[in-house]
C-alpha cells in the first residue's frame, strides 16, 4: 500500500466537509423541534459544524496550494478542461461562503430558539444553506477528480495505441 501525504490531506478535506454537512443537518433537524431540552445539543452540533468546516478549509487549502498544480495541468490537457475552468474555479470560491456560514452558525445558535421564531427560522436557513452549498462543493470535488481520471485514462489509452 502506498498512501501519500497528498492522499491523506485530500481525503481528510472531503471527510471533514461531509462531517460538517452532517453536523449542519443535525442542527437543522434539532432546530425544527427546538425545546429547552435540546438547546445544548443544537449549540454542540453548531460548534461541530464550525470546527469540521474549519478543518476542511485548512486541509483543502493546503492541498490546493501544495498538490493541485500538477492535477490542474493534467485536467487542462485532458478531455474535461471544464473540470478546472468552471468547476474548480467555482468550488474554490463557493467553499469560502460555506465556511463563513459555518462560522456564523454557532453565533446564531446562541439565541433561545424555543422562544424566538425569527431566530429559529434563521438557524434553519443558515443550516440549510451550509448543507446545500456543502453538498454542491462535495459534488464539485468528484467532478474535478473525474476530470483528472479521464485525462489519465484517455491519455494512457492514446499512448497504448
Amino acid at each position, binding site marked *: 500500500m502506498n498512501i501519500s501525504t497528498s492522499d491523506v490531506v485530500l481525503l481528510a478535506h472531503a471527510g471533514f466537509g461531509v462531517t460538517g454537512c452532517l453536523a449542519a443537518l443535525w442542527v437543522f433537524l434539532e432546530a425544527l423541534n427546538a425545546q429547552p431540552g435540546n438547546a445544548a445539543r443544537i449549540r454542540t452540533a453548531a460548534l461541530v459544524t464550525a470546527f469540521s468546516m474549519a478543518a476542511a478549509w485548512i486541509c483543502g*487549502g493546503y492541498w490546493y496550494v501544495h498538490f493541485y498544480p500538477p492535477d490542474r495541468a493534467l485536467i487542462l490537457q485532458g478531455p474535461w478542461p471544464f473540470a478546472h475552468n468552471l468547476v474548480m474555479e467555482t468550488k474554490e470560491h463557493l467553499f*469560502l461562503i460555506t465556511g463563513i456560514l459555518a462560522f*456564523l452558525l454557532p453565533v446564531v445558535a446562541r439565541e433561545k430558539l424555543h422562544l*424566538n*421564531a425569527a*431566530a429559529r427560522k434563521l438557524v434553519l*436557513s443558515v443550516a440549510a444553506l451550509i448543507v446545500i452549498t456543502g453538498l454542491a462543493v462535495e459534488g464539485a470535488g468528484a467532478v474535478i477528480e473525474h476530470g483528472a481520471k479521464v485525462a489519465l485514462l484517455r491519455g494512457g489509452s492514446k499512448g497504448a495505441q
Partner: protein
Amino acid sequence: MRSAMAPESEKLIAATSGFVLAAAITALFNTALAWARDAYAPLNGIMKSLTGNSWTAHCLADLVLFGGLGLIFTKTRAAEKIDASRLTGALIGAVAIAALGLALWFAFV
C-alpha cells in the same frame, strides 16, 4: 404547543443580527473579489505577493471582513434595526446571488 409555554419573540440579539449582516456582505464581497482577480491579473499578483498564494489572501480577506464587520455591527447595533425576517431573506438572497454569480462568471466569461 410552543405558544402555550411562553410568548414568542421576533427580535435577535445584537451579535446575531450583526454577524448575519456581515455574512451576507462577505458572501457578495467574496464573489466580487473572485471576479476582480479573474478579470484583472495585476490584482492577483498583488494578493500573491502578500501571502505567497492569491487564494490564501482571498481567504484571509473574507475572514477579516466577516469578523471585522460582525464586531463593528455588534458594537454599533447597526443591524439590530433591520427586521429579523428581512435579515434572513437578505442572507439567503446574498448567498444565492453570490453562488450563481460565481458559476455564471466561470462558465461564460
